């Protein structure tokens, strides 16, 4: 069973009818090879079922997995198994929480008969997929330091890969591999280097580094041929008042590649050196097997919270494209590695500095998608301004020490040519943007949502809206596609509901 699951994940398209891991496969593309629903018949897409999570205050932000006709979805402290044909609940597991920030849960991981999820009170929990009964739980972070856990774990070989969250007490970020059978630690990678390690020179002292942040709350991609995992790291801490951590603050706000078996770092690229705007760089790393100047290349693309789109060689980390995907005002140039050089004047100021994007960023956790047929990278983007104020003027600020206020924003769906970073088409959302992820399919379709509660299908090639339905609540996760009994389903979360659509 374990081998079969791996085959699904590695081949990506081998068992195209499933959605067995957070991003659909290891590439992070969120591209379904299904094409029963396409541009010619999407107008006939209709509701097949609705599942309400029936738990007060819960919002479906997680990407469900679909394995063997069963959907597995989550919210903080909750996991549900739901029949993928009918939307009927099979079981519901509730975790007895001891605290932590309940902002969201991105999803679960499954291998064989076992399911894994993280909880706000810092536990990695393993359940039996048959009945949702707990097998074990293991602590993966310290609740007293205001860590919490929200990431969708990813299974790679015999590793359960987990990240952590927390932005309040100047705590160091890290990323771990855990044993699928026991939850025991296999390896631990510290985002911030210790004295004597490469990168430490980008911190002023050991104390600043030891409290330097860099949470690992985004998705992980994996290249089995290279045996490298890829993920982004969060903002440095203290979050806004950066005068006590002068330097680039490696490896916060970075994209990193680690050996899947050892956790040893192969390379890094830092989109936001010395971040002071809460721009976690934890957006999805999308692996593209593409062509640059006529040569086949193994690439990694990311549309970052700071408003910039990067394409890297995922073997070496060398930069190929650095380009804004919305207009920003905080960069004064690029360094020799293709990394932005921040304009110091746009750091938070006592009397305020007007910065674009705002704290929420040009993109955030909702995942983008990539369609290999169009060669386009799709991301829901926000162009926003806010004014950043520095509150804590001391030499040793702690916590946030400032914030941004106010704002104006506009939202759009951007289709980006990965070879150049050029915007091939752009759809401005007249109803505002939503925290909605994106699904691409081989039916030449893009599925996502807007701020008015519309779930929309676009022609992936030109951005023409072909179908929509208003779901009353905004799309709150990234849609998925799968096939059961010969029918393709598109499933999306909106508020407290999961909705299944198909063409009859």
């Amino acid at each position, binding site marked *: 069973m374990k081998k079969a699951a791996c085959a699904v994940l590695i081949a990506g398209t081998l068992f195209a009818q499933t959605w067995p891991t957070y991003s659909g496969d290891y590439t992070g593309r969120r591209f379904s090879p299904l094409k029963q629903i396409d541009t010619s018949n999407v107008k006939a897409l209709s509701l097949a079922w609705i599942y309400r999570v029936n738990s007060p205050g819960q919002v479906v932000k997680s990407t469900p997995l679909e394995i063997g006709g069963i959907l597995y979805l989550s919210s903080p402290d909750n996991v549900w198994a739901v029949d993928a044909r009918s939307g009927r609940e099979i079981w519901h597991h509730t975790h007895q929480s001891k605290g932590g920030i*309940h902002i969201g849960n991105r999803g679960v991981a499954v291998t064989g008969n076992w399911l894994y999820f993280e909880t706000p009170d810092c536990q990695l929990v393993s359940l039996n997929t048959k009945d949702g009964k707990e097998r074990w739980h293991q602590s993966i972070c310290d609740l*007293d330091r205001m860590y919490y856990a929200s990431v969708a774990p990813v299974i790679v070989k015999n590793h359960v890969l987990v990240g952590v969250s*927390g932005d309040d007490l*100047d705590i160091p970020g890290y990323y771990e591999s855990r044993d699928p059978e026991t939850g025991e630690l296999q390896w631990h990678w510290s985002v911030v280097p210790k004295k004597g390690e490469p990168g430490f020179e980008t911190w002023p002292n050991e104390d600043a580094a030891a409290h330097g942040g860099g949470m690992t709350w985004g998705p992980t991609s994996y290249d089995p041929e290279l045996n490298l995992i890829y993920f982004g790291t969060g903002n440095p801490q203290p979050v806004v008042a950066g005068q006590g951590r002068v330097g680039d603050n490696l490896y916060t706000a970075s994209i990193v590649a680690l050996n899947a078996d050892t956790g040893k770092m192969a390379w890094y690229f830092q989109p936001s050196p010395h971040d002071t705007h809460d721009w976690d760089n934890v957006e999805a790393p999308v692996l593209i097997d593409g062509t640059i100047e006529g040569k086949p290349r193994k690439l990694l693309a990311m549309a970052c919270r700071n408003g910039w789109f990067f394409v890297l060689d995922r073997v070496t980390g060398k930069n190929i494209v650095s380009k804004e995907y919305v207009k920003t005002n905080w960069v004064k140039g690029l360094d020799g590695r293709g990394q932005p050089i921040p304009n110091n*004047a746009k750091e938070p100021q006592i009397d305020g500095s007007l910065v674009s994007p705002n704290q929420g960023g040009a993109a955030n956790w909702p995942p983008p998608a990539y369609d290999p047929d169009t060669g386009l990278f799709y991301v829901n983007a926000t162009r926003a301004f806010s004014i950043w*104020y520095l509150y804590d003027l001391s030499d040793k600020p702690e916590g946030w*020490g400032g914030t941004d206020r*106010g704002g104006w924003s506009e939202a759009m769906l951007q289709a980006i040519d990965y070879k150049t970073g050029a915007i091939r088409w752009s759809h401005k959302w007249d109803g505002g943007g939503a925290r909605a992820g994106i699904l691409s399919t081989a039916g030449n379709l893009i599925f996502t949502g807007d701020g*008015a509660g519309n779930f929309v299908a676009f022609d992936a090639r030109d951005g023409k809206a072909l179908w929509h339905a208003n779901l009353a609540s905004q799309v709150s996760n990234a849609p998925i596609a799968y096939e059961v009994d010969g029918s393709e389903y598109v499933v999306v979360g909106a508020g407290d509901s999961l909705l299944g659509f198909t063409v009859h």
Partner: protein
Amino acid sequence: MKNALWCAGVAVALCLSGQEPAPQAVPKKGGSLLDQAGSDDKHVVDPEAAERGRKTYIAECITCHGSTARGAQNGPDLVRSLTLLHDRYGSTIGPFLKKGHPTQSTPSGDLSEAQVKDLAHFIHARLDDTLRTSPTFHAQNILTGDARAGEAYFNGVGGCSGCHSAAGDLKGFGGKYDAIDIQQRFMFPRTGFGRGHKQTMVTVTLASGASFTGTLDKIDDFDVSLRDADGVYRSWARTSAVTVKVDDPFEAHHRLLDSIGDKNMHDVTAYLEGLK
């Protein structure tokens, strides 16, 4: 502020019960995200106990650990120490002090259990000071701009005088608001502190030539709705046969965002603040 209110609420509860708060005394699943941070049984500061603890802190700790307990030349940061972060009402600070403290001037045995608890409250209060919603965090001096330069921008390239005047709609403006409110109001009139009162208007023209104008109710990519002068609600699907023209009264402010720059923003803030 939320923390302060939260603590005040707990203090009231303490007075009523006459006891230390039970570990699960404070419901945490609701409220702000920051209220949820940490363990459900985390230390909840009693402000009165923290004030008593301040005396002990000044006598015993301040020389090495500094006035904010964030550390000084001779002593480490206490609010980021694991001893404090795992502490509940002296549960780890007490044993630590009892065991012996390398630079302690007063033998640890001289601190009573009550003094240790009060000291724990004081240091946990300093930890709370570092949280992002702490009342210790607030804007400092916003008025750094040149008011005369701001006036020139207002009447010149900024184009503000096309709609506003110091003697007209902005008369006394500077006396009504704090400087930071003024800055937010003119930079973000719709979503800032201003929360602009002006309505967005919309005109919908049909293929027949019929036209409807009113206050914009809702618009997205597929539908538009308005209320006309009589308050009647009307809506249309946005087909190719329907033309929609939105008139946003704050459009000129939005356009400024790309061009104004920080200096002009500060100068205009100073100018507007002076309109009293």
